[in-house]
């Protein structure tokens, strides 16, 4: 599709980079809240062409990374429950809980299945009527409609052996929590493109309106990110914080009302535990009472002990933007993608993994 490749042409990038260098802003920190952006910014080399006074930092935008050890331990306990097949996205498998990862559990012979989609999890339920299929659902707003759709389909098809263990979270309460803590200086925000496709660009208006922070919703191609960065610097330069949507080919002001409507039909808000943040009120999605039959938390009595994080791992601080991966003394030594101590090194979208793979070549 030529329209996609056009957003990758380096000849189109040069003029935008030149303009970025002409912006007179003083030192600025630009934060993204999306693991996809973390990776795209590293992979494209954007950090290396930024003026020295423009710093790009990552916030809590990787759903795998913000999953707490307690929630991981719950998934492990579910996988070990007799009769259960635990289905989840591949991203989760290698993440260490307080004692073991789902991969290690699978290696012990328990039924842990990687699925690409909740459609595959429903197919598992139909193929194994004598087993309980529990879908361990992680993700932000982008991923939640697929979980909602699965519950609605399970109900329509009369599936009795399908349930969801939801640790899904919402980005906006996460962003608000980070900004309210005031630990890190955030002058501008690159808004998550695919999250915004679901909830709409208007959902981010609180940033300029309440915090005076400009936000640019961006896609994932190099040109998208450069244009978003330029738009942010322009707003800082003009001292006019506002919302700009550079991903209008996908993101509408009101989002995808059908997808978000399905999420609201099936789920309600509850407090959720975030790695690095602790409990954030109304930041998680739980099944509504009406769908209790599909709620693994209600179907299975799973209790796990409070779960400490690895003492040397600084994932929590990395997720809050107050530490960079190389600030952690185990980064690249005791903690590598092959032997990760924390999720930020496991997930391909984690800041530590991105630094490990790209930064060493770039600086």
């Amino acid at each position, binding site marked *: 599709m030529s329209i996609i490749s056009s957003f990758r042409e380096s000849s189109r990038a040069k003029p935008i980079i030149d303009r970025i260098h002409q912006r007179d802003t003083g030192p600025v920190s630009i934060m993204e809240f999306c693991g996809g952006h973390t990776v795209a910014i590293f992979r494209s080399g954007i950090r290396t062409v930024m003026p020295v006074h423009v710093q790009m930092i990552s916030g809590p935008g990787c759903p795998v990374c913000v999953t707490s050890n307690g929630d991981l331990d719950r998934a492990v306990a579910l996988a070990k429950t007799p009769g259960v097949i635990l289905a989840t996205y591949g991203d989760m498998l290698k993440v260490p809980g307080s004692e073991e990862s789902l991969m290690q559990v699978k290696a012990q012979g328990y039924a842990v299945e990687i699925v690409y989609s909740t459609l595959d999890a429903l197919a598992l339920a139909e193929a194994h009527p004598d087993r309980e299929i529990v879908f361990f659902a992680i993700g932000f707003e982008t*991923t939640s409609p697929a979980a909602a759709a699965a519950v609605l389909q399970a109900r329509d098809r009369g599936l009795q052996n399908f349930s969801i263990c939801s640790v899904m979270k919402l980005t906006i309460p996460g962003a608000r929590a980070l900004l309210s803590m005031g630990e890190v200086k955030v002058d501008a925000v690159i808004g998550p493109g695919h999250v915004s*496709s679901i909830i709409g660009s208007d959902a981010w208006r609180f940033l300029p309106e309440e915090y005076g922070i400009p936000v640019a919703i961006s896609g994932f191609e190099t040109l998208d990110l450069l244009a978003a960065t330029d738009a942010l610097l322009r707003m800082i330069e003009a001292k006019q914080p506002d919302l700009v949507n550079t991903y209008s080919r996908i993101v509408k002001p009101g989002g995808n009302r059908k997808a978000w409507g399905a999420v609201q039909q099936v789920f309600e808000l509850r407090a959720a535990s975030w790695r690095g943040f602790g409990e954030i009120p109304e930041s998680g999605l739980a099944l509504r009472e009406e769908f209790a039959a599909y709620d693994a938390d209600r179907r299975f009595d799973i209790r796990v002990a409070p779960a400490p994080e690895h003492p040397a791992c600084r994932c929590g601080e990395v997720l809050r933007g107050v530490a960079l991966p190389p600030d952690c003394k185990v980064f690249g030594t005791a903690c590598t993608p092959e032997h990760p101590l924390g999720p930020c090194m496991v997930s391909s979208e984690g800041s530590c993994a991105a630094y490990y793979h790209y930064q060493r070549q770039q600086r």
Partner: protein
Amino acid sequence: MCLAVPAKVLELRDNQMALVDLNGTQREISLMVLDGEAAVGDFVLIHVGYAIEVIDEEEAERTLKMFEELGTLDEEDAGELSAIL
């Protein structure tokens, strides 16, 4: 995690499903949470097996043109342009 990829709709099927071409691979995906209609030939954005948006090609062209003009116009015009991006 929020990775979503463009795919071309090849065939509309029963139960709100569609066959799409995803970078040369054919896959069946769901249109259940797509707001609006997708037609054969449309490009849709796929996330974990569900189409979440139809890609607005006209909007894409317009955005590209604006990105291009951003770099070449003088300060004032570019300010106006990027304000409506």
